[in-house]
């Protein structure tokens, strides 16, 4: 076991998969010589050479399309979006080509698109967005969003070995802020499986990504006031682990759905609809969604703090639910 950061976990997964399988290669802006805007691929150029870690022109649609083409003839490309925000330029290739290839004409498209996403870094509207919602309504894609270094490594390995297009949402706020003990041997975290982060009996918080840590902080405070919180980390956003969602609802009967993505039409809306549709009889109160405000991500620290869900928002939601 070793302690490594979330960013190191991503780097290790890429490195190990590239060593294991010569079909794995990386392409994106500044990933090669420079080592990536966040230094995730630092040293790869020297180790793997310019044909396995490719610096591309600024053309997200072009290099995502190229990744799809390479995948169709047997490669396992990993695309790095420099910031998740730029994935919008590749929307068409992901939604109309990658997501539909297998359904339409039976061709597997094993690509991974790494999307450094999320706020709290004062990046403003174009360097802070949560992008999972844009793709959540697209059958054929898979979307994962690890919250720990352990999951970051295991889910990235699973994504690379998966035969479908996977959007890998890596929260850049977590890159160097969290650490985990990682086993020395090879492991994967299966796609499609949520994880219970904290067992509890009074209220469930269903969440993912950086918000898992915000939820943990809130749960600690609530514990002090005698409220037992269960936290479910979805880990895979598409397809959702319905079984895990229903299990926790049926156990605590009270639910908060928490995410950093904006509220309207977000992942939380779907999670809460699933619960009312399938677990209505188990509910002892309304499902409360806590999400980012329905605005672009503001730059100023004061406004960004108000934009992103905070511990206090969770506390007041849970206190409200407990009264039911």
């Amino acid at each position: 076991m070793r302690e490594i950061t979330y960013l190191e976990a991503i780097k290790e997964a890429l490195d190990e998969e590239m060593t294991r399988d010569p079909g794995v290669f990386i392409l994106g802006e500044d990933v090669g010589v420079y080592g990536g805007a966040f230094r995730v691929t630092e040293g790869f150029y020297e180790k793997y050479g310019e044909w396995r870690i490719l610096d591309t022109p600024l053309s997200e649609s072009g290099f995502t399309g190229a990744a799809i083409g390479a995948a169709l003839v047997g490669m396992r490309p990993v695309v790095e979006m420099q910031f998740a925000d730029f994935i919008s330029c590749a929307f068409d290739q992901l939604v109309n080509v990658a997501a539909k290839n297998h359904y339409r004409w039976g061709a597997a498209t094993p690509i991974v698109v790494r999307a450094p996403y999320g706020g709290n870094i004062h990046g403003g509207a174009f360097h802070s967005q949560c992008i999972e919602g844009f793709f959540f309504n697209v059958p054929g894609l898979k979307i994962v969003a690890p919250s720990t270094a352990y999951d970051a490594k295991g889910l990235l390995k699973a994504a690379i070995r998966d035969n479908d297009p996977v959007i890998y949402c890596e929260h850049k706020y977590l890159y160097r802020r969290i650490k985990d003990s990682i086993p020395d041997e090879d492991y994967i975290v299966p796609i499609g499986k949520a994880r219970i982060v904290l067992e509890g009996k009074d209220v469930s918080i269903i969440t993912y990504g950086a918000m898992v840590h915000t939820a943990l902080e809130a749960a600690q405070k609530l514990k002090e006031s005698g409220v037992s919180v269960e936290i479910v980390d979805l880990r895979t956003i598409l397809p959702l682990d319905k079984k895990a969602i229903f299990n926790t609802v049926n156990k605590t009967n009270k639910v908060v759905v928490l995410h950093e993505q904006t509220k309207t039409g977000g992942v939380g809306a779907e999670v809460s609809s699933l619960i009312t549709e399938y677990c209505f009889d188990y509910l002892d109160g309304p499902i409360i969604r806590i999400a980012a405000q329905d605005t672009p991500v503001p730059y100023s620290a004061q406004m960004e703090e108000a934009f992103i869900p905070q511990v206090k928002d969770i506390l007041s939601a849970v206190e409200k639910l407990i009264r039911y």
Partner: protein
Amino acid sequence: MDIKREDLLQLYYYLKLTRRLEDRVTSLYHQGKILGGAWTSNGTEAVSVGYGYALERNDIAAPYFRDMGVFLIRGISAKRIMAQYFGKKTGVTGGKEGNVHIGDLNFGVIGFPSHLADNYPVGAGAALAFKIRGEKRIAVACTGDGGTSRGDFHEGMNFAAARKLPMVFICNNNQYAYSTPLRLQMNIKDIAERALAYGIPSKIVDGNNVVEVYKAAKEAYEIARNGGGPTFIECKTMRMHGHSEHDSAKYVPRELLEAWKKKDPILNMEKYLWENSIAKKEELDGIDSRVKKEIEEAEAFTEQSPYPEPEDGLKGLYATPIAEE
């Protein structure tokens, strides 16, 4: 470049097969028998037949929707294509897709997305894989004049050029993007000028002359195969039907169609074969009979084929389905 007699006759056969298959689809469409729309390559068949026939077995094609010749040449049978139009289970995509939305990697054909020129970067990606693996294979992608105004056209060409990929880009310049003539699409005389901006050598060919298209493609493929990087080939031709068969194309001046009718690619090829004493009329008639028979068989096959079950629509979303506990 010399072309063997048998290759010339094969080019003629595929021109005829493409024309007759699409003509039959057109007439079935007008009888209300085709499930959805019907897009054809009528008048431009020499483009897909020429560049498709020049490929080697292991090469990859990323064709667009007026490339019926490529599907047939790669080995996707007229039977499966006809069944595809009817939404039958035996169609190329088992009814998941219709008409020209065809792809089958067993025959080296990448599926066509309607978003034109999306296949340019996708094709370039296949070429990238060949280059990474050191294989002597090439990829070719084709789009129409309309597609050349989309970003993916430019991004795909630029990427392929920057990395000197074994890639060839074809443009079927048939003068109209649906109803919009070239003069409203771009402010340049030749689409080939666009390749210049990416440092890609280009060639303009008579898109109604299958031999010329074939030769240009073959040459470009060899350059790409030997590390010389991409080439862009603009095939100047004319779409003789509407955008699709529902479209009477009244916006196309009649004189333009009359002028191009005289340059029909099949008449062109017949003339070439006769004048150079390569084949007599009887031999070409024999080829045509073979083609007719093939299409009759395709129709019979389609008629006898079952439709998919409604629940088949739920299958095949993922290549790696999520494991249930």
